[in-house]
């Protein structure tokens, strides 16, 4: 049995169904990210786990215990909010000690635990500061320490990094991941930033209007997107319409150029049908001697130098395919209007079946 089980969760606000039949199990010590566009219901699910919202249907079970009847203050769940939500009237020490005092710990034990937690986030020297005397990143680390201090069963983070600037965001997400692994705490992390989700999660749930479109490791989510939505939401992706020539041999055409797919088209596809194919920008290259068993020829439409990579867009039939190549000092970027050959491996072409 899994540590955290969400089964058949639904939630409606009035006539609007925000979460539709959400099922998921999370193992003890796992770090799971909910990834999805704004308004898809990520926060709502998190709030149902925390007990701030009551599911319209379904159950939340933690460690074998049904949580539906428990109030938020009986669940022993750590929560970190986007807006930090530190108590403005308390010092850093008192903020972190808050949950411990409520749990009825002794003063000496509280002090020791607070010290330990502040050490974990490297803010031991700021114990006497008030929240308004600290930067956003520091406040959020205190909020993390405060949530972790009472040893919660589950840690929930709702876009904890959204209010911070880019540099802090990267360093703090790594810090969160390190602390999570150190403590082995089961964690649910909500974000709409795919890079964040890909970089620190054990598993990702890609959500689309109240449903989980795909649940899998970052590697699987990125390389084997299950739906068109996942494919387009996670990473950049070329969606190419192709015409089936012969389903038996997996032969298709893009524009007027024939290609043989590695992945079987399946029995429901007939000759003349249109299929959607996906190709990651980093899968192809027009460099001399580029490897790949498949080639497409087209005209370069645009070419952007982005520093370490060059993003080029090429027109093949009706499709515009963009691809990234690493910058090489000895090679100038392709010129617009130039006709080039894009090479890639046929197995990198994914068939998108909704």
């Amino acid at each position, binding site marked *: 049995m899994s540590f955290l089980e969400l089964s058949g969760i639904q939630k409606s606000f009035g006539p609007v169904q925000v979460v539709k039949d959400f099922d998921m199990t999370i193992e003890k010590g796992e770090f799971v990210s909910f990834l999805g566009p704004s308004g898809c219901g990520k926060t709502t699910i998190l709030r149902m786990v*925390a*007990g*701030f919202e009551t599911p319209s249907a379904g159950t939340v079970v933690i460690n074998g215990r049904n949580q539906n009847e428990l*109030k*938020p*203050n*009986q*669940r*022993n*769940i*750590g*929560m970190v*909010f986007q*807006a*930090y*939500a*530190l*108590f*403005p*009237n308390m010092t850093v020490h008192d903020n972190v000690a*808050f*949950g411990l005092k*409520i*749990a009825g710990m002794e003063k000496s034990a509280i002090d020791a635990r607070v010290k330990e937690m502040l050490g974990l986030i490297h803010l031991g020297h700021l114990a006497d500061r*008030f*929240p*308004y005397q600290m930067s*956003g990143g520091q*406040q959020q680390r205190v*909020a993390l320490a*405060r*949530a972790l201090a*009472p040893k919660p069963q589950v840690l929930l983070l709702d876009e904890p990094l959204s209010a911070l600037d880019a540099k802090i965001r990267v360093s703090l997400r790594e810090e969160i991941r390190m602390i999570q692994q150190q403590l082995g705490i089961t964690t649910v992390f909500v974000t709409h930033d795919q890079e964040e989700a890909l970089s620190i999660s054990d598993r990702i749930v890609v959500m689309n209007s109240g449903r989980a479109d795909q649940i899998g490791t970052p590697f699987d989510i990125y390389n084997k997107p299950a739906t068109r939505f996942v494919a387009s939401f996670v990473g950049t992706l070329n969606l190419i319409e192709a015409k089936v020539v012969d389903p038996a041999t997996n032969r298709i055409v893009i524009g007027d150029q024939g290609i043989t797919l590695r992945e079987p088209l399946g029995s429901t596809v007939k000759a003349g049908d249109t299929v959607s194919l996906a190709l990651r920008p980093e899968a192809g290259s027009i460099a001399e001697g580029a490897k790949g068993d498949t080639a497409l020829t087209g005209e370069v439409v645009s070419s952007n130098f982005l520093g370490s990579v060059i993003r080029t867009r090429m027109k093949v039939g009706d499709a515009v395919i963009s691809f990234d190549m690493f910058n090489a000092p000895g090679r100038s970027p392709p010129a617009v209007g130039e006709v080039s050959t894009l090479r890639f491996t046929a197995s990198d072409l994914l068939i998108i079946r909704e």
Partner: protein
Amino acid sequence: MKTQKIGAWIAVLFGASYFIVPLIATFEFSLRMRRGEYSFDAYRSVFSDIQFRESFSYSIMMAILTIIFGVLLVVPTAYWVRLRLPQMRPVVEFITLMPLVIPAIVIVFGYLRLYNSSSYIPFTGSARGTDMLLMFSFMTLSLPYMYRSVDTAMRTIDVGTLTEAAQSLGASWPTIMFKCIFPNVMSGVLSGAFITFAIVIGEFTMPSLLNRPAFGPYLQLIGANRAYEPPALAIIAFAITWGCMALLQLVSRFSKSAPSKP
């Protein structure tokens, strides 16, 4: 430029003299109890009057009770409205404004009809009951100011998220109320409290019609029967009001440097 400035100063001085001259005159008159020389005899007489001490301490007691119960009523109400009934805020705000619209005399006659000794809730049947009724009426009078200042202070904190943060850490409602919300709206509570204090000390209509020995009716009584004590009392009342105002200023300055939302 220069003449403009002087003109402005003259205008200010003229306006200020409008308030200050009568006050100085009152003060001057209050010093003239002893014939031929200035003295504080009138003040001595006021402070030695047992009725002054009794009525003044009664009113202070009333003010403190009004503040305590007023705060206990207003803070949780404002909190709950912000947290759970945001759509009710205009309605609640309107209700709290009613005491400004309805004259105190109308309210007190309503009380007397509703709570007289032969009614179902005979507040006026005993002195303690009447005291309670008086306290409630003071609460009503101070409601517009108290609610407004507390609600304004509450605007500076994210009530919803702070509540949820506290809940997830295991806090119960009383803990959230007294550890997380109250301390953060203290500046509003204090400024509301000082206004309440000033109102209660000066209020005449309510205690007079409910026949309780408060400072307001005493002030009126002395004013009708003595010559030098009323100006002395007026000056004392002014001093108290000014003291409250100064405290208000202090509190609002203090609250600016106090912790606020990031």
